[in-house]
């Protein structure tokens, strides 16, 4: 059996969701690695965009900022933030990845603050950045995160970026573009999607080494389950070879 760590697994799973010819806005770190891995395996024509303006660069190294030189190195375009965000708003961007301190059962994400009083936060995080925009405007939002019951909670202190809001049709009633929303939550323990009707988070597969019980115990709300739960497909040798050798040879991300 091949050895891999949990971040490597999450990156490989994320990469598989990015089909050839799709567009994806990524941040730094694991999402960027996932998109690069997809390009170097099954999706050579995956178009990677960065919110500060970079479009389809030949990435020479892992970017340290979503606006640094790497994000438009030999790129198709070095444009602007409005250009990227309006491309999302027009419906041309298929995927994005977000992170956050908390996520609830409808895929709503908090990256703003912890505490009961917004004007005097107990813990202040950076805020939305482009997250609210990408979650609102791209077709499918994905999240890669370590799973624990504090992070996966319905007692979310602040909804920074919209998931399915209060579930059901509430996202579209709020005015957000039809057909958009959270698509996959990829954790160290499982892969989740969302129920078509209720929009509740739904486990699709459980990662090797974890049980259904682990997944539920490390989640602060009740998960629902797909009719048939497969075991998540492990990273294969090719994926790991390319991820380790070509995507992140310095182990900046997979070494964390």
């Amino acid at each position, binding site marked *: 059996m091949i050895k891999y760590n949990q971040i490597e697994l999450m990156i490989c799973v994320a990469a598989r969701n990015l089909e050839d010819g799709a567009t994806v806005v990524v*941040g*730094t*770190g694991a999402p960027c690695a996932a998109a690069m891995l997809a390009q170097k395996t099954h999706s050579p024509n995956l178009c990677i965009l*960065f*919110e*500060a*303006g*970079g479009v389809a660069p030949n990435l*020479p*190294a892992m*970017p*340290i*900022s*979503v*606006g*640094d*030189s790497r*994000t*438009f190195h030999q790129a198709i375009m*070095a*444009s*602007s*933030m*409005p250009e990227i*965000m309006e491309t999302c*708003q027009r419906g041309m961007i298929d995927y994005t990845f977000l992170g956050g301190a908390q996520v609830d059962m409808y895929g*709503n994400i908090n990256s*703003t603050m912890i505490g009961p009083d*917004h*004007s*005097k*936060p*107990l*813990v*202040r*995080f*950076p*805020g*939305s*950045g*482009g*997250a*609210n*925009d990408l979650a*609102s*405007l791209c077709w499918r939002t994905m999240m890669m995160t370590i799973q624990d019951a504090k992070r996966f909670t319905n007692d979310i202190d*602040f*909804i*920074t*970026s*919209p998931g399915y*809001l209060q579930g059901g049709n*509430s*996202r579209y009633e*709020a*005015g*957000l*573009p039809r057909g958009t929303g959270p698509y996959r939550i990829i954790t160290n323990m499982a892969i989740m999607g969302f129920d078509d009707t209720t929009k509740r988070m739904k486990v699709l597969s459980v990662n090797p080494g974890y049980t259904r019980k682990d997944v539920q115990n490390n989640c602060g709300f009740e998960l629902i389950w797909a009719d048939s739960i497969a075991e998540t497909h492990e990273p294969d040798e090719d994926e790991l070879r390319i991820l380790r050798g070509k995507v992140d040879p310095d182990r900046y991300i997979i070494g964390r």
Partner: protein
Amino acid sequence: MTMLKKKITNKDGNLKSGQNELFTNPDADAAREFFRTKSRALKPKLSTVEEVVKNYLHDGDYIGIGGFGAIRIPTAILHEIIRQKKKHLGFAGHTSTHDFQILAAGECFDKCDIAYIVGLEARGLSPNSRRYIESGKVKITEWSNATLSWRIKAAAMGLSFLPARNLMGTDTFKYSASKEIICPFTGQKYMAHPALYPDFAAIHVHECDVYGNAHIYGASVSDQDLAKASRYVVLTTEKIIPTEKIRQNPEATSIPFWCVDAVVEIPYGSYPGNMPYEYFSDEEYLRKWLTIEKDPTEFKKFIDKQIFGTKNFFEYLELNGGMEKMKKLRAIELLYDQK
């Protein structure tokens, strides 16, 4: 294409508003009154950081900073703002990272429009910036990167608002100052984002002429709009170029002269930030800030030495490695091995 026939009912009663404070006046006519008398003359505008911060920035003003936090930032102007102890500023926190660190170190602003603050992206969070925001001394209103971009764009277009399809349904909206509106054609709900006309903007560019006609290479972020939206605009530039170079390639002009009030030539002016195609960010130095910030006393000493202790940007560069360091950062940027 069929024409839209459906009758629209404007359900104004149900439209929500963000509850936080709007720090600037979005009124387009008020901005026009200013722009009516702003000089459009094609005259030389060379100045110094001391002069521009003294002449164009006043306590209580609202400021916008070009670039992207630690990329193409006007570091010399940021240093001078805290050197001149400007206070009670409003600040557009539009992916502000190292710029935020500097201004937070001087406690220069007490009103902040937030899209992205207190972090340095993949580098981690800034302890001092967090202390400042968590102290409650700063009035904050929440937005997002696109929202601040569009608020600046609304101003650049001479409007008081722009419609958009983000923020809806979230607490980011609740603690913003945006308002829901209804599209009169489709009946769809939109967000109206209020125009942001800053009093002062500083933008670092690759090259410009003495009149302020500027070229920016790489991602422009929101700087073309920021230059138009702001009442006073100061450029720092890696180098001054002859106007002929602007006129040889008029489709490449990023910022035209009439937006610009002053120009200061500052080689390596984005240090410790990245300047695309010129030099990479000094990651070691940025890590040092993040580490020293953990201890407020040490951090104060550090700032005293780095900013108050250096009389200008040349001294600051010298203190941090001078030309030899710059050569190293060029090698990283241009992806060649340093000899």
